[in-house]
């Protein structure tokens, strides 16, 4: 393709600008509202210049144990991500490598788990976890989120494993390596971008999830998303605290994605086989 002309460049940047505004406006509103004094919260037109206050943040962490809820969220999200990526990768590797005429059916069956409307399984989950004594524990949420995350990971990782040349594994086998060593030292490192993508998807899903967290946790294992909702009571909606909570919730997700970003590169297998 030729070098883009000036008009094309302007068009591209204009579209990018619009997209940026669309995506960043809510974040701006959250951030600005979280430091806006309550009396001017709903002033019209919105107050652009004001003395920022951190009272909402102070309230967030003093009126309620919001730090603990964040930790719960982190534990659940990281736990489910680790669990899903580990088992999802192993399953995906098997599906990618084992030749069997029913393998596609198995793969589809795994994916079909993901098609369940979540609301349909809330009550069964509730009964199962109540019987097992796991209600209001992070483990319950880790299990629930993993059942949704593993199918996703399996499908993502299968695609990445399919692209790792078989010849590399054969070379490693002839070089004296066993299955686990080959998987760990050859195949998995070459599928690292897939691991990063899977981890990001799993983390964000678990981190943002609301429905199961609301139904399956009480005061102990409550996650941050549910905690924010509790500022919405029948007599008042404490917007300042909700915004402050929302802004705090944004941060770990952004940090996690940025951390994974360095692995989101293509072309890792270049130069291996001609």
């Amino acid at each position: 393709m030729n070098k883009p002309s000036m008009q094309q460049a302007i068009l591209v940047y204009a579209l990018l600008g619009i997209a940026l505004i669309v995506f960043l406006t809510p974040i701006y509103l959250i951030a600005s509202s979280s430091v806006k004094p309550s009396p001017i919260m709903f002033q019209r037109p919105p107050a652009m210049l004001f003395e920022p206050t951190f009272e909402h943040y102070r309230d967030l962490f003093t009126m309620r144990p919001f730090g603990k809820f964040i930790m719960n969220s982190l534990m659940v999200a990281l736990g489910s991500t680790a669990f899903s990526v580990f088992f999802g990768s192993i399953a995906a590797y098997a599906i990618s490598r084992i030749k069997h005429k029913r393998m596609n059916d198995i793969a589809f069956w795994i994916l079909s788990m993901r098609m369940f409307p979540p609301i349909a399984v809330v009550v069964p989950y509730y009964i199962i976890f109540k019987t097992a004594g796991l209600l209001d524990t992070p483990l319950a949420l880790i299990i629930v989120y993993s059942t949704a995350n593993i199918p996703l990971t399996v499908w993502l990782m299968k695609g990445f494993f399919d692209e790792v040349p078989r010849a590399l594994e054969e070379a490693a086998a002839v070089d004296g390596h066993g299955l686990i060593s080959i998987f760990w030292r050859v195949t998995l490192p070459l599928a690292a971008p897939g691991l990063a993508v899977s981890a990001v998807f799993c983390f964000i899903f678990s981190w943002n999830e609301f429905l199961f967290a609301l139904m399956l946790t009480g005061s102990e294992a409550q996650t941050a998303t549910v905690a924010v909702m509790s500022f919405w009571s029948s007599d008042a909606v404490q917007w300042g605290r909700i915004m402050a909570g929302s802004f705090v919730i944004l941060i770990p997700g952004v940090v996690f994605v940025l951390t994974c970003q360095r692995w989101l590169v293509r072309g890792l297998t270049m130069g291996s086989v001609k």
Partner: protein
Amino acid sequence: MSAITLRSVVKRYGSVEVVHGIDLDVEEGEFVVLLGPSGCGKTTTLRMVAGLEDVSDGELSIAGRRVNEVAPKDRGVAMVFQNYALYPHMSVRQNMEFALRPLGLDAAEVDRRIQEAAGILGLGELLARKPAQLSGGQRQRVAMGRAMVRTPDVFLFDEPLSNLDAKLRTQVRLEIGKLHNRLGTTVLYVTHDQVEAMTLADKIVVMQNGHIEQVGTPEQVYAHPNNMFVASFIGSPSMNMIPARHEGGRLRAEGLDLAVPSRFEGKLPEGQDVVIGIRPTGLQRAEPGAADAVVARVEVTEFLGNEALLDIRVGDHELIAEIPAAGRPAPGDEVSLTFDPSVIHLFDPQTGATLSR
């Protein structure tokens, strides 16, 4: 004791049999080339030796030990792959280290072996590079280095030169030959290129359709092919084949009437159909009117330097003759050619088998 032994080895994929009960002995230190067109089962055979394909039937032994059920990692072989299969996330040094890791050597020995291989193959400057930063020829050498450092009982090569350009191919071919002379390790080498086979092999195994057609030294398969397939597959340009009939001590075909070479006298029944095989170099220019000469029209001449190839037409048959380039005829000229009786091959047209013995 043979380094590698195959006894009635069969390979099936489902109900399709691709290697049909082959027998082969590779002696210690021998350079054996599996040669044949694509789809002949040579690579499958090599992969069975490596352990990358299961043996469906028969027995495969390496160094006297049955290895049918032995995992590739425990067979004491090293393999150079057609596409090199270098680990892209590892440097050249790490690629070699990775091959050594299962041997559990101490760091000094690992380093000594890598340095030695790097020295022999000229990889010293490249040890820190990743495969993506290497040229095709360099990657090929790294693949050989990775196989070498393990000091295996057997080297397996799967068409190692097919991804290189012509000039590099000749050069690396020489290097592989030198390497074998130097290390003396048993080599099993797969190629479809008969020049590679002829130049490198102590013993050539010619394969077709999952069968071994002939096993012999390069001289044997060239000079004494077992059948028409071997005769036409070995040698470039390939051997001329002319259907003919034995009548009264003469071999007759359209436009052709030759005395039966003395070797075959008394062996051919009268009226037997044969196929005459003669290499392009076995056709020699003769004076017009010389005994048993065929007169043919030259269709094309190809100048090769010292020699020239003549495409000529004798009766219905197109033949190729290789003659000295000096004084070569022009297209459209008539030439007289004689068949050198000492290099005439005769084959059975039904079975393709040689009648020469």
